[in-house]
């Protein structure tokens, strides 16, 4: 081992010595170990533990009691839980659909229009704010009597303005909008970078062949960045399924569960109702759903051959 280490300090700096070190299995294990341990400790072990706690009845204070799969059978019958699943799925679909809008904005921005640089930064600003700050901002906007949204609606002559965060019928949509707003810049930047990566010669060649801007966008640019789009769909869906912070601050899942999503349901079960076993079961279920969603999206968007710039 000591001999192998000394190779590292070999001033020769040739790749040959490096290869020799890296072919030593012991060294490889040594290098992998720290991050492996870290990942095991903070991610995989807790996942296993969540599964384990999911089999228990536990209020976080009294001793745990093994109850087998009771938490899961209760989960299947829990109407409030399925309502939260439905809300999360609606949100996942909305986030995915909104990607089309972000893509359109990115296309326009990448088209060298005037002020694109400034606009790109403007779109990114919400990303820089913390979720709690955004939540506070939108709480003010949605305030039923003094909020600017209802103020505007009243100004244009609408009576009976909605009570955005109080009406069970609108509250879910009212909390989705700030979240979409929050992440818009993120996706726009990803698409923008991908579009900028397309060699200008391809676009130019298409233009010489007489393609319109729309054709260039749909037939040339879209297929070329399809790999990136796939990634963003997974990010949007999984991100929506596990989304928590803004909803927690703005409504806490209320009123009466009207804006509850899976993650807030899990939090409320564990921390408000003091059912850590049940909360863990929800958490485990959430993990399974996210894995299935990821797998499903990869399957659906799988392409036989990837198109490359050449």
């Amino acid at each position, binding site marked *: 081992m000591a001999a192998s280490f000394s190779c590292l300090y070999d001033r020769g700096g040739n790749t040959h010595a490096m290869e020799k070190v890296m072919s030593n299995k012991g060294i490889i294990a040594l290098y992998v170990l720290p991050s492996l341990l870290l990942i095991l400790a903070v991610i995989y072990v*807790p*996942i296993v533990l969540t599964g384990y706690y999911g089999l228990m009845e536990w209020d*976080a204070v009294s001793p745990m009691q093994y109850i087998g799969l009771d938490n899961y059978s209760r989960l299947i019958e829990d109407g409030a839980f399925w309502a939260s699943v439905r809300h999360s799925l609606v949100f996942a679909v909305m986030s995915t659909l909104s990607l089309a809008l972000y893509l359109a904005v990115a296309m326009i921005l990448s088209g060298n229009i005037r002020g694109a640089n400034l606009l790109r930064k403007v779109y990114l600003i919400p990303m820089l704010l913390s979720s709690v700050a955004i939540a506070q901002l939108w709480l003010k906007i949605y305030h039923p009597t003094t909020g600017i949204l209802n103020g505007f609606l009243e100004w244009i002559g609408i009576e009976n303005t909605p009570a955005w965060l*109080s009406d069970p019928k609108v509250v879910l949509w009212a909390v989705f909008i700030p979240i979409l707003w929050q992440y818009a810049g993120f996706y726009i930047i990803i698409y923008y970078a991908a579009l900028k990566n397309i060699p200008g010669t391809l676009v130019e060649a298409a233009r010489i062949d007489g393609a319109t801007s729309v054709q260039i966008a749909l037939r040339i640019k879209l297929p070329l960045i399809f790999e990136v789009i796939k990634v963003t769909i*997974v990010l949007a869906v999984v991100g929506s399924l596990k989304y928590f912070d803004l909803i927690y601050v703005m*409504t806490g899942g209320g009123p009466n569960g009207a804006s509850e999503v899976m993650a807030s349901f899990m939090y409320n079960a564990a921390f408000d109702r*003091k059912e850590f076993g049940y909360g863990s079961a929800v958490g485990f279920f959430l993990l399974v759903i996210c894995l299935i969603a990821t797998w499903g999206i990869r399957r659906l968007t799988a392409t036989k051959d990837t198109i490359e710039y050449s």
Partner: protein
Amino acid sequence: MKKKALTASTMLLSLSLVLAACGGSNNNNGNNGASPAASPSAPAAESSEAPASEASGEPITLNMMHLWPEGSSLQQFKLVNQIIEEYKSVAPNVTIKTEVLENEQYKDKISVLSSSNELPDVGLTWAAGFLEPYVKGNRFAPLDDLLQGELKDKFVPGTPEAYSSGGKVYGLPLELNIVPIYYNKEIFANNNLQPPQTLDDLKNIIKTLSDKGITPITLGGKDAWTVSFWYMYLAERFGGTELLDQSVANNTFNDPALLEAAKASQELVDMNAFIKGFNGLSNDEAKAEFASEQAAMYAMGTWEVPNYTTNPDVPQEFKDKVGFFKFPTVTGGKGGVNDWVGGPGVGLYVSESSPHKEEAKKFVSFFVQKWGEHSVVDAGVIPATKVDTSKINLPPLFIELLNELNNANNLTLFLDVQMKPVAADEHKKLAQALYGKSISPEDFLKKHEEALKAGK
């Protein structure tokens, strides 16, 4: 990519579990560390009462966790520090270390610490339902010896009992809260209104104000316990002082008076009694409506009284406009006007696994006595220990309320405090739904009964 998504998706749940996982190993350490330290200090403390500080001159540190941050509860924060300072002259060898958290964070933290058996030696707890799992898990030490001894007859009768389980008391109440309805005298005077005696009077007031475009009552329904106040009072006024206590104790929720109260609740909602969009407003937002004189009435615990009397940050001009009235009675109802909804707020516990349990008990005993002497004057907190109003100098609103407390006929303990955690959460959601009119009064009762019968 897949790996990244997986990583991200588990971040949230791993957070709580990491804490729990750490707890497992600390559990043993805590116990091992506690037992050898506890045995030498305990006999020393018991054998000699007065010279305890000299006998056990060995310096010890007691950890205390409380929920009055400097920013939001300055007066309580100062008072705690003052009492700790005073305790130095009684027990110079004891250092009290405090950790301060905001209310909701405190609740989360105490449950996490408890799960790993790392509770601070002294801290705050709530009564009844909150305390139950901690007693079952053997986390809190019984304090009956203090109540039989130096604290005998110091408390308002019935208040320590709210912290009892299985016949033993595990908490010493610091606060006693009742819920009056505060009203803006100026708005009432401008509209020729008098504080109501009956529910019909209240309805007339609501109608008058609502017709003039003034918000009659402000309410922060996002914090569902504030909605629960209104339902509890109506239920009490229709069905009498024992009704809610008995319903929870017997796991039933089908008394006709409960249904009447639910119907009356929705009647008030239909009259636009409550501020627009109340289920989306937090209590703080609702409170701001009352403070900015946009709403005429506001039902809230007596912890708000300092804001209307002693708090120097609130303009005197506004303070002079605030009055209170008792929840009106209903015709044919069993509840009287001197029945209150309320309950002891927080109380002090001593950790069962504390290495310095006897020292901690002495400190809490000292603390509640000093708190009783100072809290109402210095912090505007009504203590659970008896207050002689003739000896203190306070704004009239305060004195009136303290006197009301002495006349109080009975106290209905907050429902969400009485109920077990799952049922309490369900109750709050149902109250939100009832006042948001997304559930019928009949279903409201049915679901309560289901939640109570589930026994969680």
